[in-house]
Each structure stands twice: as structure tokens, then as C-alpha cells.
């Protein structure tokens, strides 16, 4: 082991949370070191090159940006992070198309008014329910940001019931129960619940506010993607970090978080990398999973009690099986008219969830084609799509390693068959294909079971029930393991965590200055 430099803060992992944390710290004047086990920044927000294609790995629809005229929070955050002038955002014009075999095939536009019109046109008998539901979505979402937060801050029951009564009444109910309350048509309910895929849990197991949030955020503030893929934004965040004087090491996994255990609670003093390099620091922000951070990296003999207690009521969330496909034709050749398509053979929610825990043919898949809104995503005349289903990593526990390749190709065939059904001719246009299983996700994300959204997000796993960990002095989490998964939440949590650390560092500096000044005064007396 060699003892090297001292840093104000060290970030473990250059995923979305790690990158926004790193950029925030460095731009805030902290001496910051970013350590990444892989050769490239981004974590999920990355790309890889095969043949003529650079495949987007994980970003399907970026939320929270808003338009220039009607900006939303991510525009402000990306400005603060210094990346708005480094990347181009591309607006998508549809929320999604959802098509269920023998049931329905409906496309929702990326407009709040437009969604309402399409829904009423397709389900005229449910007009009043549609209007009520959408109004409720809007109210619950806005209240969750404003009225509820204010009431929480003031600790006021009056304010809670007065300014966030819809949130109080419906926010934490299951999405399914609120859909059931408003609609009788199963098709309509299935259509409106499509975004459960981005949360990894069935509608009966997600909070209504989370589903409402997505419909509202994408509907009002539009879905976006990034020119050059999410890798471009990861690279831009890193650039912003480096410009501010941050230091980065790739191919440098962290092996251990070293603590001083003499006090009431362990206190971070240093970290050690896989190469045996030790860096002194009192502030570590981990973008690794909670499980890896506390079970594998933290040097205490036992898990801190509060952590252990929290973990006991947690389960590992879903991973995904994903095909990255380069097509030798433009999207329109196959009738792909919008970026995001949810496809399925059933509206049975239980069956969808059960299937995620098996190697049976998936009943719900998603196809994203970036070229619809951005032809630069593939060489002229070609296009790239990602075709995926959610799947739990444990499915692969029993597959012998020597059967791994055959098993993954066999499962990939199921997905292609489903795509073929909705987009006839699909298979014959495949030019490049790369198969990623939950084990691939595990390899690149280093998460248990290859989880892509962190712990399972049951209603009881929401942030409201899970206080931020403070059991280890100087160890902070920034990723999807203590909140929601996905791009916007992880970008945001990285920044807010780093802001809190900056505050601490500043307070520390002031305290030290005070001390030095006091000493300065004392010293002449001693002489």
C-alpha cells in the first residue's frame, strides 16, 4: 500500500450520481477525486461501438428537462453543472405507443392536452374518468413538490390537509387502486400504467404519485434524449469536473472505505483502491450500490445497526434483458413511427410480474428506436433499437456457466419473435446485435443481481419511509439505492448529496479558520 494525496472528497463510481456529485464538488471548490472501476464514465449512461453503430445502453426517455419556453428542473441543474453548452438535447414527440396483441394499439403524444384528446377519442365512455384522473395526476404531482414539502418543513398538519390534500389522499395509494377507482375499461388502465416498466414494479405495487409523476413530467415537459447518446452527457459531466480541477482515475475500483472506529460511530478517514493506493479523505460519496458499499467496501466488522435494520426490509430489484440491435434500414421500413413502444401479449399484471422471475418468453417488452427523432443515431439508411424486457438476476443463478451463451441466445430469440409479431420483417433487417443479460448488467454496474433500479421499489420503499443513511460519519450515498431509479432522480441525488457535503466542508473550513485565529491571538501571549 502506498499513501498518496489527501482529498476533500472522494467519489466512488462515475455513474450519473457520481458524476453530478463530482462536478458539483469540484465546481464548488472542493479538491475531489473520482474513482471508476471501468474505463469509461457513465455507469448505465454509456454506449459501446459495434460495427457501424454506437449503441445507447440505458437512456430511453430523459425527463425533467422541459422546453426552452417551459423549462423544468433538469435544465437548471445541467446549467449549474456546466454541461448545457456541451450537449444537444433532442425532443421526442410521443410519450409512447402501447400495443397489446388482440387488444389495442394506441399512441400517446407528448402533450398533456394531446394525451387527454387521444384517450377520450379511444375511450369515449370514460371521458369523465379521464378528465378526473389527469387532473388528479397534476394535483398530486404539484402538491408533492410544493404543498407537501412546505407542510413537512413547517411540521403543520393544517397545511398538509389544506395545501396537499390530494397528495395526502392518493399519493401513497397503489397506482392500480387509483386506476381502478377512475376506470372500468381494462385496456385504458393498462395503457395508462405502461410506465411501470421504468419503475420495475407492477402497478399494484407502485405508489400512485410515482406513476402520476411520469405521465405528468413526460406529458408536460416532454421526453428527451441526447445527441450522441447518454455517453455524451456522461463525458460532458466529466469534462466539467476536469475543467474545475477535479481528478479522475479509470480502471481503479475502490477496495475499501477505511474508518476510524474510536468514536460513537465510524468516521471515514481514507479509501483504498484495487491497486493498493490509499487516499486520505473525510468525505466519501458512493455511487456504488448500498449493499456493495456497506457489506463489501466498509471496513467495519459488522454492519452499522441502522443500515442492517434498513437492509432487512429490502429486496434486490429487477434487472433487464436487453438486445442492442443495429438495423440495416430506416425505422419507417418496419413501420416504427415513434421512439418508445411498449408491446405485450397480455394485460394480466400478475403474469407480467411472474414472468420477470423466469426464463419463459416475456409477455411485456419494450422497443426504443432513437432514430425516429434523431437520424444521427445510426449511419444514413440504418437505425438502432434497443429491445428489452425486465428480468430478475436470480433467474440466471441456476444456469451453468458453460450454458450461458446458448441460454442467452435462446432467450434473445423470444424477444425477437415478439418484435417480429408487431414489426413484421424485423429479424431480416438485423445487421448487428449484442445481447445483454442481467449478468451483463451485474458485470458493468457491479450491483447485486444486476439490479438496474436499486432495491425493489414497493410502496414501503419510497424515500418518505427511508431516511438517508447517517450511520457512518462522512459516508454518503448517491445513486438509485436510496430513492428512485432512472436518470433524472440519480442526476438530482448526486447534486444534492454533493451540495450537502460542500456545506459541511465549508463549515469545517470556517471552524478551522476560527481556531487558527484564536491560536494567532494566543501565540504572542505564549511567546
Amino acid at each position, binding site marked *: 500500500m502506498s499513501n498518496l494525496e489527501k482529498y476533500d472528497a472522494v467519489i466512488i463510481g462515475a455513474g450519473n450520481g457520481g458524476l453530478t456529485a463530482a462536478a458539483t464538488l469540484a465546481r464548488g471548490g472542493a479538491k475531489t477525486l473520482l474513482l471508476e472501476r471501468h*474505463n*469509461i464514465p457513465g455507469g448505465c449512461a454509456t*454506449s*459501446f*461501438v459495434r*460495427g*457501424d453503430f*454506437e449503441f445507447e445502453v440505458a437512456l430511453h426517455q430523459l425527463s425533467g428537462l422541459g422546453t426552452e419556453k417551459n423549462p423544468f428542473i433538469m435544465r437548471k441543474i445541467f446549467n449549474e453543472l456546466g454541461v448545457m453548452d456541451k450537449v444537444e438535447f433532442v425532443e421526442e414527440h410521443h410519450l409512447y405507443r402501447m400495443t397489446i396483441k388482440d387488444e389495442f394499439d394506441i399512441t400517446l403524444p407528448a402533450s398533456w392536452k394531446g394525451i387527454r384528446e387521444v384517450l377520450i377519442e379511444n375511450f369515449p365512455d370514460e371521458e369523465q374518468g379521464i378528465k378526473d384522473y389527469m387532473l388528479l395526476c397534476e394535483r398530486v404531482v404539484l402538491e408533492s413538490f410544493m404543498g407537501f414539502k412546505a407542510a*413537512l418543513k413547517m*411540521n*403543520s*398538519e393544517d397545511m*398538509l*390537509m389544506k395545501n396537499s390534500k390530494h397528495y*395526502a*389522499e*392518493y*399519493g*401513497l*395509494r397503489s397506482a392500480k387502486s387509483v386506476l381502478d377507482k377512475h376506470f372500468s375499461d381494462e385496456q385504458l388502465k393498462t395503457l395508462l400504467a405502461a410506465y411501470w416498466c421504468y419503475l420495475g414494479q407492477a402497478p399494484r405495487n407502485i*405508489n400512485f404519485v410515482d406513476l402520476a409523476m411520469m405521465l405528468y413530467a413526460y406529458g408536460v415537459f416532454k421526453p428527451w434524449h441526447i445527441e*450522441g447518446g447518454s*455517453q455524451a452527457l*456522461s*463525458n*460532458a459531466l466529466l469534462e466539467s469536473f*476536469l475543467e474545475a480541477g477535479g481528478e479522475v*482515475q*479509470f*480502471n481503479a475500483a475502490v477496495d475499501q472505505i477505511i474508518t476510524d472506529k474510536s468514536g460513537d460511530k465510524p468516521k471515514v478517514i481514507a479509501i483504498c483502491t484495487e491497486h493498493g493506493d490509499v487516499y486520505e479523505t473525510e468525505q466519501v460519496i458512493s455511487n456504488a450500490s448500498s*449493499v456493495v458499499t456497506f*457489506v*463489501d467496501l466498509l471496513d467495519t466488522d*459488522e*454492519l452499522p445497526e441502522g443500515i*442492517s*435494520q434498513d*437492509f*432487512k*426490509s*429490502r*429486496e434486490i430489484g429487477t434487472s433487464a434483458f436487453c438486445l442492442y440491435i443495429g438495423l*440495416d434500414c430506416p425505422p419507417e421500413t418496419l413501420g416504427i413511427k415513434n421512439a418508445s413502444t411498449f408491446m405485450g401479449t397480455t394485460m394480466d399484471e400478475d403474469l407480467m410480474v411472474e414472468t420477470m422471475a423466469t426464463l419463459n418468453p416475456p409477455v411485456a417488452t419494450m422497443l426504443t428506436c432513437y432514430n425516429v427523432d434523431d437520424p444521427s443515431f445510426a449511419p444514413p439508411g440504418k437505425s438502432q433499437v434497443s429491445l428489452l424486457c425486465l428480468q430478475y438476476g436470480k433467474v440466471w443463478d441456476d444456469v451453468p*456457466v*458453460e450454458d450461458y451463451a*446458448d441460454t442467452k*441466445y435462446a432467450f434473445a430469440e423470444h424477444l*425477437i419473435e415478439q418484435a417480429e409479431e408487431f414489426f413484421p420483417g424485423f429479424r431480416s433487417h438485423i*445487421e448487428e*446485435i449484442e445481447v445483454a443479460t442481467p*449478468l451483463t448488467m*451485474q*458485470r458493468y454496474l*457491479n*450491483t*447485486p443481481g444486476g439490479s438496474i433500479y436499486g432495491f425493489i421499489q414497493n*410502496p*414501503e420503499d419510497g424515500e*418518505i*419511509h427511508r431516511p438517508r443513511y447517517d450511520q457512518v460519519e462522512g459516508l454518503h450515498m448517491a445513486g438509485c439505492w436510496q430513492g428512485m431509479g432512472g436518470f433524472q432522480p440519480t442526476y438530482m441525488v448526486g447534486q444534492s448529496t454533493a451540495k450537502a457535503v460542500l456545506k459541511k466542508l465549508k463549515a469545517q473550513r470556517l471552524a478551522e479558520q476560527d481556531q487558527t485565529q484564536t491560536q494567532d491571538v494566543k501565540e504572542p501571549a505564549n511567546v
Partner: protein
Amino acid sequence: MSNQYITNKEQLLSNLVGYVESRELIAEREKIGSDFSEDKGKNTAEIAKLHPKRLNLEVTEIFQETPSTKTFRVRSARGALPPFQAGQYINLFVNIDGVETARPYAISSCPTHRDYYDLTVKIVKGGFVTNYLLNDVEVGQTFSATSPIGTFYYNPIIHGKKLVFLAGGSGGAPARAMIESVLSRGVDADFYLVYGNSFAEDVIFQDTFRALAQKHENFHVMEVISRPEEGYEGLTGYLTGELINEAVSGVDEVMFYVCGPTPFNDFCKSELKALSVADKRIRIECNGPPKNPSSIQNWPTEVSEEEMVTVKVRGKGEFKAQVGEPLLNSLERNGYFVENACRSGECSLCRVKLVEGEVFNPPEAKLRKSDETFGWVHSCVAFPTSDIEILY
């Protein structure tokens, strides 16, 4: 104080419909759940089953295949080696006279053999590492290596039922693995090997291929010698379009795998293009950095390969390097380690950021678009055409 607050907060939140039920659920789950502490090391172990970061290998047997080629059979003291897809390679780390470097070698044995990998190495004129391996390495020597990696393999989803491998010289190594794998798994496909060599005595795995062709109706081998001795009775010349067309009918349904020295690969590609074979039906294995980068289009004509430039590594030091030498090689010769595997521009493990100066990126560099924007290059195929500063 804080307890008081929490009680109040809980009280406040209990007004939210569903809140209390969730708290109760959490309390219940806490009683029966695990805190994952028994999973220490599990993630790493699970990943290492398929993709360990490093393999520790020992040479247990050496076979002289031809006068110019040896096969090194390597094993791990840990037993079974990771599975791989036939056609993939490992990157072998070597220390030659104090220089730490590495070279990728295709595994020539079939993936069904999990207890060893065969690495088949053919002499390369002036080859720094091949000369060392062929002349100095004996049984018992140990190496560190990456786990198997690479994108040159049979993909059952899209490669179809007619597979043609155009191999040149050492390209026979991945060809053997791929052919044995396809045949032993009973894949429903016709497989043709067209194998070009300069000299008749240099045909690697000649007996193996001939025996397989005898045994399997769906495998066909054709040997082609470009510099035959007098009296040689087999096919002679190069792997021309005409010859390929004769060997295999219906080339528009074929998936072609091309692996050999770079000039061989380039020749095969142009012949296949002339036969109107679509790009997507030609898979060419990458094969190291270009030997004469200054002959490539867009090379800055005012710079010669022999010139010397200064390479500064931010925070670490600086050294003099020759323009015509790949940056990764000069870094290694000056004692800087950069992770790497394919050494051909493809895998991106050796990515470094160009902070100052210019490098030449040949077409071999499969850069991500945004890497280009922000100055990240693949050092294994980057040529410094001015004084540069990098960071990694």
C-alpha cells in the same frame, strides 16, 4: 430534541393514506429479512465466474505445430477456466527485458475444453512478443492475462446457415476454435474453411481440419498456397473472389469470417465487395495497430513517422516518443501502465484523454462520437503527431 421531531413527523405523515400500512410492512419485513451481510464478496465472485479481471495461467504443454508456429497450452491452478465464445481472445501480459506489455491471442482450442486454453502463435518478422514467446518461453512459465474478450464469433441469431471462414496464416487459430465449436454443438449450418498460407509447410492444424472434414458432412476445407514449391499439387494463389465463388455457392446468404494478417484481411474484403457481398455479411477480426500509419488517408503530410515528440502524462512525468509508434507501446516502454486488451482500437480499455497536442486516429480506432468530441483516444492505435499531454 430530534426524537421529538421524529415523533411529530411520523404523526404528520400518518395523515397520508397508506403511510401507516407501509410502516407496518417495513416492521414486519425487518423481522424476517436478511441484511445481506452474508453476501460479502458474492457480487465479485458471481462476476468472476464469467469475467474475472485477470487469469493466472501456467504453460503446461508446448506443441510445435509447424516450423513457424507453436501452440502453448495454458491452465489455471484454480481449475476450470471461464467459458468463452469460439473466436474470442485473451490478452497475455508479458515482461520482456523489463518492459511490461501485452498481446492478444485468439484461443485456438474449443470452448468445450474448460481445463485449458490453447494459444497458437506464429512467428512475426521483427515481432517483439512473438519472438519472445517462441524462443524463450518454456513449460512452467506463468503469465497473467485478461479473461476472454472480443466480438469475433459465431452469433446464432443472425449469422445464418452458411458460414465461410477465410483464414490467413495465424487466422487458423480462431478458425479451429470456431469450427470445432460449431461442429461439436451440432449447429445446423454448413461451414467452409478457405485457408490461405504462403508455404505448404505452414498450414496450421492441417490434420485436424482434414480429419474434421472427413467426419462431418457439413464441414469443408480448402487449402490455398500462394508460394508453392515445385510439384505442389493443391490449390495455389490467393483467396480471390473467383476462388471463393467456386468454393461456395450463393455467396449472398453467407456469413464470412475473415482473420489473418492485415494485408490478407484487406485483400479478402475487397474481393468480397467485388462479389457484392453486403458489409453486414463480412466479419473481420481486428489485427493490431496499422504498421504504416503515414500511408493512411488524412495523415498530416508534414509529419514523418521517424520524428520524435514529447509525451507528457499529467501528474506522472514525460518521455520522448516516436511519431510512428502507437502511444500505448511507447507508454509501456517508458514504464507507464494503461489497461488494455485488443490493442487494435476496438475494446476501448486503453482510452486516455488528449489534453494538449495532436494525435492521428486511424480507421482502426472505433471511437465513441462523444469521446472524439472531448478528446478521448484509444492509445493502442493513437499516433502522437506533435508534442502532447495526456491524462488517464
